[in-house]
């Protein structure tokens, strides 16, 4: 077994809601270094739950979680891995809680015990990298939806993680913001799992597709050649699709 390359290894993992509905049903899932996985599944199929279980935010009802070669059970085990795995929440308002952008981005590094100067340095560098140079003193709740998304990504990247778990990062973004985010993801030297409903986003940013159904997760490699009808203006003229 190449334990060195396996970052996340879920065995027989189950999760049940307190009410009793099983969301994850004895899942086996391996995630290795360099993997860029797209997760496509209908709403309510347990994608977000899976992310939260990996982060130790939800306690599984059965099975084992191995992350970075060690079994993780207690809260303390997860505290050690949280800064190495960055989870981007679906709603940026959940992630950005500080009044100003720089404070929010520096929150993670400061929690990791960095000094003020180091934290500021890392934060500025990260904002710079994402093209958010002048955002430092902007007020978080006054940002636009797309800006909020990029700043949340900055708050996570500032922790210098090895893995990203991205929960619908392109959701509700306009086209230019979307392509900006895609090119950022393409440029990152990180392993990640990306939840999305948008196939064009997935095909540009991930190598493998997984799907979830009835509490199970499975690889979905079959590329189906298909045609579909659609309408648009001046469609009668000969034209090409990107």
């Amino acid at each position: 077994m190449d334990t060195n390359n396996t970052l996340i290894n879920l065995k027989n993992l189950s999760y049940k809601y307190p009410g009793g509905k099983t969301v994850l049903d004895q899942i086996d899932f391996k995630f290795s270094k360099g993997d860029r996985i797209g997760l496509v599944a209908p709403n309510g199929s347990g994608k977000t739950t899976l992310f939260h279980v990996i982060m130790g935010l939800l306690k599984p009802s059965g099975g084992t979680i191995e992350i970075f070669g060690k079994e993780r059970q207690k809260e303390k085990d997860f505290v050690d891995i949280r800064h190495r795995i960055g989870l981007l929440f679906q709603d940026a308002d959940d992630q950005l809680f500080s009044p100003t952008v720089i404070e929010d981005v520096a929150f993670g590094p400061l929690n990791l015990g960095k000094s003020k100067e180091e934290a500021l340095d890392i934060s500025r560098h990260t904002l710079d990298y994402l093209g958010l140079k002048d955002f430092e003193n902007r007020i978080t709740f006054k940002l636009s939806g797309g800006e909020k998304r990029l700043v949340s990504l900055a708050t996570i990247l500032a922790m210098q993680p090895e893995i990203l778990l991205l929960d619908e990062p392109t959701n509700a973004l306009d086209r230019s913001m979307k392509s900006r985010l895609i090119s950022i993801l393409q440029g990152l030297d990180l392993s990640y799992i990306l939840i999305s409903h948008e196939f064009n986003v997935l095909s540009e940013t991930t190598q493998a597709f997984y799907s979830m159904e009835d509490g199970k997760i499975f690889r979905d490699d079959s590329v189906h050649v298909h045609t579909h009808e659609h309408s648009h203006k001046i469609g009668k003229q000969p034209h090409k699709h990107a």
Partner: protein
Amino acid sequence: MISEAFASGKSILHAIDPRIKVVLATIFSFVVALSSSFVILLSGFATAMVLVMVARLDVKEVLKRLAILWGFVVLIWILVPLTYPGTTLIRIGPLGFSSPGILIAAQISLKSTAILLSLMALLATMPIATMGHALGCLGIPDKLVYLLLITYRYVFVMEQEYQRLIRAMKIRGFKPGTNLHSYQSYAYLVGMLFVHASVRADRVSKAMKCRGFTGRFHSLWQFEPDPRNQIFAVIMSLIIILMATVELWIQTIHS
């Protein structure tokens, strides 16, 4: 919702260390509130006016805020002289306005206007985020400071959620009236806001945990030293001390 109309500006008062402004505004308000002689109240009012001018606040915005206060003050002018015992100064039909009552109403008007003006000049000239950090530096417990900051951050999100729910009600023809259906709908609305707030709080706390939060906040804040801080602190302190001394002196003479 919270517009922070005065928070950004280029006046000297905007540049003064927020900690100094918080401390001076607090002491000034206490001195004015506890004084009763008109000399001191008038000088407090004058000081506050000067502060507002130095801060170069937008007059229209200042008046808008004062108007809200004066709404209450008008009520006091009607109620206190009517109910306060003492010699009657003016009599309109069966209604008698007592002269001590009028004096008290005048005192209250001066005090509240002076305090509000000084708070606008001293406290409103910093963003709430800065005020939070200043309070933290002054030894206010972290928990209270972050309660303030996080409330401020999420008040806007809650307002959006409120607007969303109101819209959902309106598009289905909801018209508020004095009937049980309206009351019940509003109760549901408030209930839903609480539910949303608690679910939101849970997600925010999870997000914070994911970024290594273990219960201790670290502040990035630091204030630049500036000689104007000391000058301002000394001048304001002198004014306040002078006001307090004269007030005490007047009170001992009268007693």
